[in-house]
């Protein structure tokens, strides 16, 4: 490739980033023209956000260089990037919700008159930016009263107020309605006409083909291709995104689905935007996968099954009887167990022992007549967890935080098996676990299904879903886009369903 062409606003060249044991970015390049919308695409975990974090100095890259406006740059933090005209509208909006809109926009650089803040100038400047972007929000309204799309527009206005030449938008439409998306697109067009470039990270094919000029596709930390949007179709993008081979990474399936155990009908969450009208069935000994993009509300659905979210409608039937899971306690009593996605924040008690971590959800079983806990019963069950889950640990008293991610996860799964659940809900059970340990987790899941448990497993890793499950429910934007038989589906079909709504 030619070293540098003057037509590009931003060039990230041959970027490589290693984490311990993982090559997160392998010689990736990205070139963005001024005034263009450049889509950055790839599956979850393809390296898009790692690349952006290198741009903003949140990660330091191991190799490669970044040219911005023809000059080599290396931002120390997002503040520095911001001041040099590179800004980002985050998926999780970083705002002070208790303050008003203009306070947020000018935070850290308030216009002043003497020692006082010049509220009038602040208001006028904000109003002027809003007007130029066709945003109708009162600069004095509190951020916490705004809708998500309004907050996002405030972030975009903030980027504009820094005279950004390039704005990165990470999944900007994931929680917007169609009218709001159209408004966002009008704003993008307007920015483009002022020669601002946009890096647009999204999974939604239709949107990307509609709004972007060029598309760069990444896969497994590698650069795959950059193409003009006009020359691309949805199918081609998907092919480029998923085109890898499935090696033998999964144990042979030994489970046989039996009779119906769980019937979920018409589940709709109370606080929207979230999932609506989700229905599916699960059989004994079956592994049902849930696929979907970030923001498709997969986690919300299993949390609702586990009594953590309120519903406006829908029924959950277990073994033919309607059950009400209004709280996790009720759900546990009814035979549900949930291994959460965020093992560190909602799964383990890191400073405490394996023993404590094993029995915490099943405390009642260990009470003796006198009301104290029986050390012997606790030790027996802890040993059962260690043995049957094949946890590699020096002792029961070892703190769980000192184990590897895979072994931690095994303890958590063991914890829930002690409650003798009928339904095991697994949210990203292999996240942050190395390949060898993943295989053991898959074996465990298989074996549990073979013993007759109903298993629901959310995963963002397509090969994992295809390798482990029997059927896959595909979520798209809060709706069930379809249920496919694992044996007869393909990554392409799932991707298309995931982008349906």
């Amino acid at each position, binding site marked *: 490739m030619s070293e540098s062409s003057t037509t590009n606003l931003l060039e990230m060249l041959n970027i490589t980033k290693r984490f311990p044991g993982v090559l997160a970015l392998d010689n990736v390049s990205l070139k963005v023209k001024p005034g263009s919308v450049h889509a950055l695409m790839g599956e979850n975990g393809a390296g898009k956000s790692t690349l952006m974090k290198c741009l903003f100095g949140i990660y330091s890259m191991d190799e490669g260089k970044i040219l911005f406006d023809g000059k080599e740059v290396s931002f120390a933090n997002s503040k520095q990037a*911001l001041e040099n005209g590179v800004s980002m509208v985050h998926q999780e909006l970083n705002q*002070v919700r*208790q303050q008003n809109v203009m*306070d947020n926009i000018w935070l*850290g650089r308030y216009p002043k008159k003497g020692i006082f803040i010049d509220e009038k100038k602040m208001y006028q400047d904000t109003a002027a930016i809003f007007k130029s972007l066709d945003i109708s929000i009162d600069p004095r309204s509190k951020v916490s009263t705004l809708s998500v799309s309004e907050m996002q527009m405030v972030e975009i206005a903030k980027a504009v107020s820094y005279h950004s030449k390039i704005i990165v938008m990470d999944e900007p439409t994931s929680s917007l309605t169609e009218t709001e998306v159209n408004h966002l697109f009008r704003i993008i067009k307007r920015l483009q006409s002022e020669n601002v470039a946009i890096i647009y990270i999204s999974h939604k094919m239709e949107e990307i083909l509609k709004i972007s000029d060029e598309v760069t596709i990444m896969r497994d930390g590698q650069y795959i291709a950059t193409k003009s949007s006009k020359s691309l179709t949805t199918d081609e993008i998907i092919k480029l995104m998923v085109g890898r081979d499935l090696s033998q990474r999964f144990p042979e399936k030994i489970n046989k689905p039996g009779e119906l155990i769980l019937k979920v009908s018409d589940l709709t969450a109370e606080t929207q935007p979230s999932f609506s009208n989700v229905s599916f069935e699960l059989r004994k000994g079956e592994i049902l996968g849930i696929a979907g993009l970030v923001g498709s509300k997969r986690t919300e659905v299993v949390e609702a099954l586990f009594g953590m979210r309120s519903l406006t409608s829908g029924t959950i039937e277990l073994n033919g009887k309607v059950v009400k899971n209004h709280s996790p306690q009720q759900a546990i009593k009814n035979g549900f167990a949930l291994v959460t996605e965020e093992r560190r924040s909602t799964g383990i008690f890191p400073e405490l022992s394996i023993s404590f971590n094993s029995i915490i959800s099943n405390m009642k079983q260990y009470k003796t007549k006198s009301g104290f806990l029986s050390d012997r019963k606790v030790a027996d069950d802890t040993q059962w967890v260690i043995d049957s889950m094949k946890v590699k640990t020096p002792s029961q008293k070892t703190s769980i935080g000192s184990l590897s991610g895979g072994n931690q996860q095994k303890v958590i799964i063991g914890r829930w098996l002690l409650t003798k659940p009928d339904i095991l809900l697994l949210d990203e059970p292999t996240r942050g676990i190395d390949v060898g340990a993943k295989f053991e987790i898959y074996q465990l899941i298989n074996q549990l299904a073979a013993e007759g448990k109903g298993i629901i497993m959310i995963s963002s890793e397509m090969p994992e879903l295809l390798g482990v499950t029997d059927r896959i429910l595909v979520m798209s934007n809060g709706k069930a886009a379809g249920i496919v038989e694992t044996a007869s589906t393909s990554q392409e079909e799932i991707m298309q369903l995931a982008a349906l709504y």
Partner: protein
Amino acid sequence: MNTQASKKSSFSKWLVDNVIYVVLILLVVGIVSASPDFLSMTNLINILSQSSSRIIIALGVAGILITAGTDLSAGRMVGLAAVISASMLQAGDYAYRMYPNLPELPLIVPIVIAMAATGLIAALNGVIVAKFHVPPFIATLGMMIGVYGLTSIYFDRPPYGAQPIGGLSKAFTTFAQRGIKIGQYEFPYLIFYAIVVSLIIWVIWNKTQLGKNMYAIGGNPEAAKVSGVNVARNLIIIYTIAGLLYGLTGTLEAGRVGSATNNTGNMYELDAIAACVVGGVSLSGGIGTVPGVITGVLIFQVINYGLAFLGVSPYIQFIVKGAIIIVAVAFDMRKHAKKK
């Protein structure tokens, strides 16, 4: 957009937003209906003057609470300032002077010394919290204990040992105890000091960069940092301002009571924190207003004074005050609680 639809009827929203003012009015109405005599200028002046120094310390604590911090050392700093200022403002002809040879100083000198002492200690609190990342509860707990020791060493020493520091100069007692006569009523100077401090603090919170930064740091420290706010520096300044206010409170307390000991100001910080939370300051940071804090202080003072006026047992007053704190915050949590 869709925010409009989710808003409750405007009255119930107004009620939730202004619940503390409603509570204050209801309290007054309740006490007045039990005893109509309560509604007099004298009682009003008494309540206001008793509230004055509490408002000043509460405004200091409130600023720290808004940064999602806390300050347990406030009361002990009040004590330190009281002892320092009283020791330097004893009347020249008083027999038991701590500094027998000290000339009668102009008022401003001891006040500035006392405020400088507490300002420095509070700045140290700020440094410990901002630079060494010690949780504010722990940092100020340690400081609370340490400052008491410091105050006691200063207080309990020859020639007179642990005697209350009394015999204050006329200028000092006039400054803290007298007032401006308007018609038949005398309005204590204390009320005017509290008004001036409240105005200054209001301006800082609402009209300066420091104030905005204070709310931003408490509301979302990450957002403040990425927007280029120097979080550590702002925190240290906010703690220091609080310290200056404790110093002023201590001086006023010594003058008002007419003496000071090493126990002056004991537990004032808890009263101040209680008044702040009842006044709508959020312990998780980012929320709080000057009128709210003042109302919080007034609510407690009306309970104190009003129930005593009605002849209610002081023990029952404690129960009422405790209940008010819990109920007020429970209400506040409802306001901020979000359903998953």
